[in-house]
């Protein structure tokens, strides 16, 4: 690696780590998409491609002791919060080495030891869990925070208003991170949504900001402020990250849509350009002002590609899930 004078070395390392995490998500998701499209992977998968900056930016300021709740589009959040890529791939393939031993799959990747309370197949399912985790942290007088990552589809679930209210009433250490990709499954969110999302938070007196969700640094900065406030006992914050979902609601969506579409190819392509795509954008910024060289980025590309292929090999070589396990894990030991 080339030493460039007058560059903040720490910042350079941090930015490269952010870049690497975003790229790991992108390459993982591309590989998952390939397997899903080829019919090699069971179930349905919802890919995070295009939204990497919001999850990585949000999780970059968190510790393992902090909690996140995630969505059906949760692979990116899992990896952003430090989840193991091998254990994730094994889970997606329904293997016993999977992070949930093959019992949860794509929509439920979770690693409680890292504060990842799980992707969730119910749109908005993480909202009350995140609020409850915030309540639990407060009752336990801990310094942790709880981060609810949710989408604009979930924002129309009634529990959001209920939980925004309670988190504000009791100053729970919760950060509400709305990843607004403009799409509620197969429906344009604007067609079914009134008002500004941030106004919902402001209605209960909560600090709310809108940031460019494809700018990892912008998300990180907003998060830093919100996390500081939460750790100081000053209560919740709401951050709307404007972003865009490049892939379909799920990988098999063409089969459901039967030739119809809810958006144009031009619209999708417009979000793939170097000034929009979160990874291409950040690569340019790293080269221009982050002190990184093309060689640094190439090295990361190589490392990430290798990591993903190793994860796929690990998953494919692993044993299938154990059906007997179902009966062992539904309940914890019942004896008093």
């Amino acid at each position, binding site marked *: 690696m080339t030493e460039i004078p007058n560059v903040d070395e720490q910042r350079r390392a941090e930015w490269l780590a952010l870049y690497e995490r975003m790229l790991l998500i992108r390459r993982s998701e591309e590989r998952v998409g390939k397997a899903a499209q080829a019919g090699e992977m069971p179930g349905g998968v919802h890919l995070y491609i295009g939204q990497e900056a919001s999850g990585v930016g949000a999780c970059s300021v968190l510790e393992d002791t902090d909690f996140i709740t995630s969505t059906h589009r949760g692979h990116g959040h899992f990896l952003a919060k430090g989840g193991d890529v091998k254990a994730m791939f094994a889970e997606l393939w329904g293997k016993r080495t999977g992070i949930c031993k093959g019992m949860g799959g794509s929509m439920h990747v979770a690693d409680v030891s890292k504060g990842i309370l799980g992707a969730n197949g119910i749109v908005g399912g993480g909202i009350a869990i995140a609020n409850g985790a915030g309540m*639990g942290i407060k009752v336990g007088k801990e310094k942790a925070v709880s981060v609810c990552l949710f989408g604009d589809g979930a924002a129309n679930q009634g529990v959001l208003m209920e939980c925004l209210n309670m988190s504000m009433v009791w100053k729970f250490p919760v950060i509400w991170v709305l990843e607004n990709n403009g799409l509620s499954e197969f429906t344009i969110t604007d067609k079914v949504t009134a008002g500004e999302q941030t106004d919902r938070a402001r209605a209960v007196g909560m600090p709310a900001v809108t940031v460019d969700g494809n700018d990892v640094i912008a998300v990180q900065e907003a998060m830093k402020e919100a996390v500081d406030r939460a750790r100081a006992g000053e209560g919740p914050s709401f951050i709307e990250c404007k972003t865009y979902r490049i892939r379909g609601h799920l990988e098999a969506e063409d089969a459901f849509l039967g030739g119809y579409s809810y958006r144009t190819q031009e619209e999708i392509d417009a979000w793939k350009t170097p000034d929009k795509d979160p990874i291409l954008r950040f690569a340019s910024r790293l080269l221009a002002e982050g002190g990184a060289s093309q060689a640094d980025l190439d090295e990361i590309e190589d490392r990430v590609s290798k990591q993903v292929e190793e994860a796929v090999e690990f998953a494919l070589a692993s044993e299938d899930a154990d059906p007997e396990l179902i009966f062992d894990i539904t309940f914890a030991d*019942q004896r008093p």
Partner: protein
Amino acid sequence: MAKMRYIQAINQVFLDEMERDKNIMLFGEDVELAIFGDTREVYKTFGPERVYNTPICENSLTGMAVGAAAAGRRVILHLMFGNFVYTGMDAIAHQMAKLRMMTGGQMDLPITVIAGYGGGRSLAGQHSDTPFPVLMNIGGVNVVTPATPADAKGLLTTAIRGNNPTFFLEASGRGGDSGEVPDGEYLVPFGKATVHKEGSDVTICAIGTMVRPALRAAKTLEAEGISAEVVDPRTLVPLDEDGIAASVSKTGRLVLVDECKDRCSAASHIAAVMADKCFGDLKAPIKRVTVPNVSMPYAGVAEMAIFPTPEKIVAAVKSVTGELAGASA
């Protein structure tokens, strides 16, 4: 032993357990004023740091119980009425009941949800349901239905100290029953039925609120020469299939008494299990005394028309012990 009311036994467990374990928190609607009496003094004793008197939003509360438990707390959620299981159902069915399994066993969820169920108080359809079936069917939550003050203490203590989501369904309408309650630490294990009265001619398996009318029916039957054994499962999930079957095999007859609506009731489930386990020992068809598949009406006279009563239990027993009743007559 001390004589106390059912609701007092529950109240005492909250106070004792929250004193014993500082990690326990309690939340729910109107818990500060304790409209059922079961949370009396809890808010005052442990304060707003551990007790949250919440707004009215059951669907969030059930999900929040999951989050607080995942964050390491031992959680008691007061859901007030059994019907509010339905308003809070999304997170109960999708999160509370499933997350342990779906995370491969990573997540222990020590959650006790308490709610008063049942009719007989002219509160009409939206406050009189007995939601055993839906909870039993979810797969992943315990369903606990104590009938006596002693069992209320023992089962609630087990629920709170346990590591699984447990619905503690309070026999609220008739929860004022008094009874002897063991002093000091007292835990009743889940999945262990109890026999309230021994008998040899018929097993009356009565759940929760139905134990009292079943015991009254047994007394009437005794005077007529029919010896009824009154068995109480105490917990529906897990269910003491062998314990109930032992009684049925002994008497050869089974009448189930359940405050649920009949279709897919706890009674019909137990009937199916007992038909399977005790087929060779049964001398008569299994009978159920339940509530018809209609909404609970408001007017007392209408309510009691469809409610299981001692008279209906006696009639059901006589329909399977006809020859015995005839012999003693």
